């Protein structure tokens, strides 16, 4: 446990000793706040409803989460510290999970920094906190999926930029498959499969309404677990390749 904690602290240090976390969080807050709050404040009539804020957050995540995850394993490979890391008395799985946890912590922090928005709205109106907290829960689960995809891409490449582009592309595909506009241009049955199997955004809709559905939790957990397992295997593959 101590070793994992040390590794976790090291990862968090990497984030906050470099501008990565600051840039990602500031960009995210400016985009989310600028878009969401402007829509909430200028709605006619104004409603104490945080939905405009959560409408686009999943889309921002498509870019922000891979940016947070791109360096996790790719940097270790390119700088040659991967070999050093695997000689440490920690398992490959521990390394993967700790890195995931560190990136997820930054994402959690980033999402928590948006809390002043609903607090302000709640001060001026009658906000449904259940729906708001449900949306946050969904956003975090979706973010965990995107980060695990980013981690998987990071385990494949030495270059952080390539890892970012590949991860963002995969996340974008997942997002597009759940997008209503996309489902209109494909056959009806394919649209249903596309949304339910690949649509990360589709499964977020229930959370945004204030419904926490076991099906959505299983879905998000499966995607995240799948990518983490594949990342672990990717790290382990050096032993048999």
């Amino acid at each position, binding site marked *: 446990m101590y070793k994992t904690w040390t590794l976790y602290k090291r990862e968090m240090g990497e984030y906050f000793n470099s501008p990565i976390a*600051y840039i990602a969080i500031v960009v995210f807050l400016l985009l989310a*706040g600028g878009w969401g709050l402007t829509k909430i404040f200028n709605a006619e009539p104004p409603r*104490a409803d945080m939905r405009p804020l959560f409408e686009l957050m999943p889309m921002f995540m498509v870019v922000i989460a891979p940016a947070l995850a791109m360096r996790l394993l790719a940097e270790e490979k390119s700088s040659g510290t991967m070999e050093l890391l695997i000689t440490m008395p920690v398992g490959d799985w521990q390394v993967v999970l700790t890195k995931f946890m560190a990136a997820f912590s930054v994402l959690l922090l980033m999402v928590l920094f948006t809390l002043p928005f609903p607090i302000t709205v709640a001060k001026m109106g009658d906000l449904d906190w259940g729906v708001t907290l449900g949306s946050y829960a969904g956003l975090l689960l979706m973010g965990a999926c995107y980060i695990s995809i980013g981690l998987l891409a990071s385990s494949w490449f030495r270059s952080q930029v390539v890892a970012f582009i590949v991860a963002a592309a995969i996340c974008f595909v997942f997002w597009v498959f759940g997008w209503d506009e996309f489902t209109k241009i494909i056959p009806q049955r394919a649209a249903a499969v596309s949304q339910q199997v690949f649509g990360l955004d589709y499964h977020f809709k229930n959370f945004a309404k*204030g419904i*926490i559905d076991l099906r959505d939790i299983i879905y998000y957990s499966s995607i995240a*677990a799948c990518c983490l397992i594949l990342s672990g295997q990717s790290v382990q593959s050096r032993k048999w390749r």
Partner: protein
Amino acid sequence: MANQTTRFQLGLNSILFTGLLVAALLLANVFGAYVRCQVDVTEDKLYTLSDASKKIVKEAKSPLKVRVFISRKLVAGLDEVRQYLVDTLDRYKDASSNFTWELIHPEDSDAKERLAKEYGIRKATYQTKQTGSKESRELYFGLAISYKRPGADKEEMEVIPNLGWNIQKNLEYLLTERFHRLVRGRKKVALVTGHNEVPPKALSQLVKMLGQFFKAYEIVQYNIRGTKPPPADTEVMMVLSPKTPWTAAERKKLNSFVMQGKGVLFLLEGMALQKQRQQFQMQRMPPIMMPHNTGLNDLLWKWGVKVAGNFVMDVGQKPLLIRRGRQAQVIFHPALLNIRYSRRLKAPVTPFLASSLDLKAAYVSSKIQPGKKFRVSPILLTSPQAWTVKGPYMFNPQRRDRPPEGAKRARYVVAAMVEGTLPSAVPGSGPTESKSMSRLVVVGDFDLLKLAAAVPGNRIFLQNLVDWLASDETLVKLRNKQMQERELNLPSSKPKRYMIQLANILGMPILLVLFGIIWWRIRLSRRRTAAQELGPRRS
């Protein structure tokens, strides 16, 4: 060679392990799709079937059948609505073994299409909701509910030909209201006439309007001037703005109705328009309002309420569009109250009601007498800035009256409810007190009903009042579930609004950047210190 075999085995194990785990996760998703386990975290439990709905379907003594007619091919986005409908019907099914539902795709066969037509369900045009989308399709999206009440000759039917896009807002109410009608039947509500309440020509229109508002009830007319008592199965009486005073004999009839433990809704006006002389009409003088005697205040005062002969005026009104025939007029007058119901003031008839009501009210005075077996509670209040005016008062809708100097500014009650064992208000006639809990509601205004067609808040409030008076509050909470207008009271000054917005958007990023700079400086100084400490040793 041995090393190569080990590596091959390792690789194979690894791939197999990964494949098995991924397969297990896929299976978990497949099985998970069949498990309906949802937690509704909304404050008003918008997506949970309420106890009231469960109770209604449980009361069904014979099969309560729902046939849902939906086309196979829907427009984009409507799938989600269909899924919501399916999930909701499943929840009803879980609540009662007598509840059944089936999904029918009418286009599958001629017989199914004929069945849909028999029930009055026809195709309607649905267009995708996304902006810029042009996809529209003729499709079936309706349902029919049938139920045969024990002892009844035939099945009764309720049909919703087209459910529409917005059912996610009020589906539970749409369904439970119909189940309620089928399972419990319709109770009688007597509309009291005999005092020129409305012009004779408008009476049938009023009855029709009430029939539309109170679909769970059968509206019957009852002339209080006649010799007969109201029908025995009448649950609620409605006394709507009598223009001439009630006589003692009529009050006695009303008293004996209340003594049976039944409910009465009074929409009374404290001030009434005086008929103008022709010369004033010619000069287009504004009408004059005078205190109005309904002859009911003495009776009501025995039960702790009365309608004062004055007008309540308030700040914060909103413009009201009044249509008279083809003419429309916007009225903006402090006598036209726009009452925003506070979610914090929870009366049994207004749980969660966040809508606003429009009315032109008189002050309802209430007398709280300790030790009595009944309770008087206010249900509609003005703002604390309200004031009253007495008659004669020249009502000019074009003029925005201001409170006179020295006017008492206070929160005035414009509607109150009375509940409990009421004493007989006419001594020497029948029992001395009501045999069970009686319920009364007194509203100092008739416009509440007149405006109900145009103002949803008024309509829902009135429906809730009648349900409460009939001691059947099943639909009250459901009805309000659809009214989720959570208001945001933004500062009226634009600069202040922008400041709040900017502070929110830029506040956190600035703090974070500042933290980053401080952290960077600390690390830099630590590094310098370390370099200084190491420097001499190196040299």
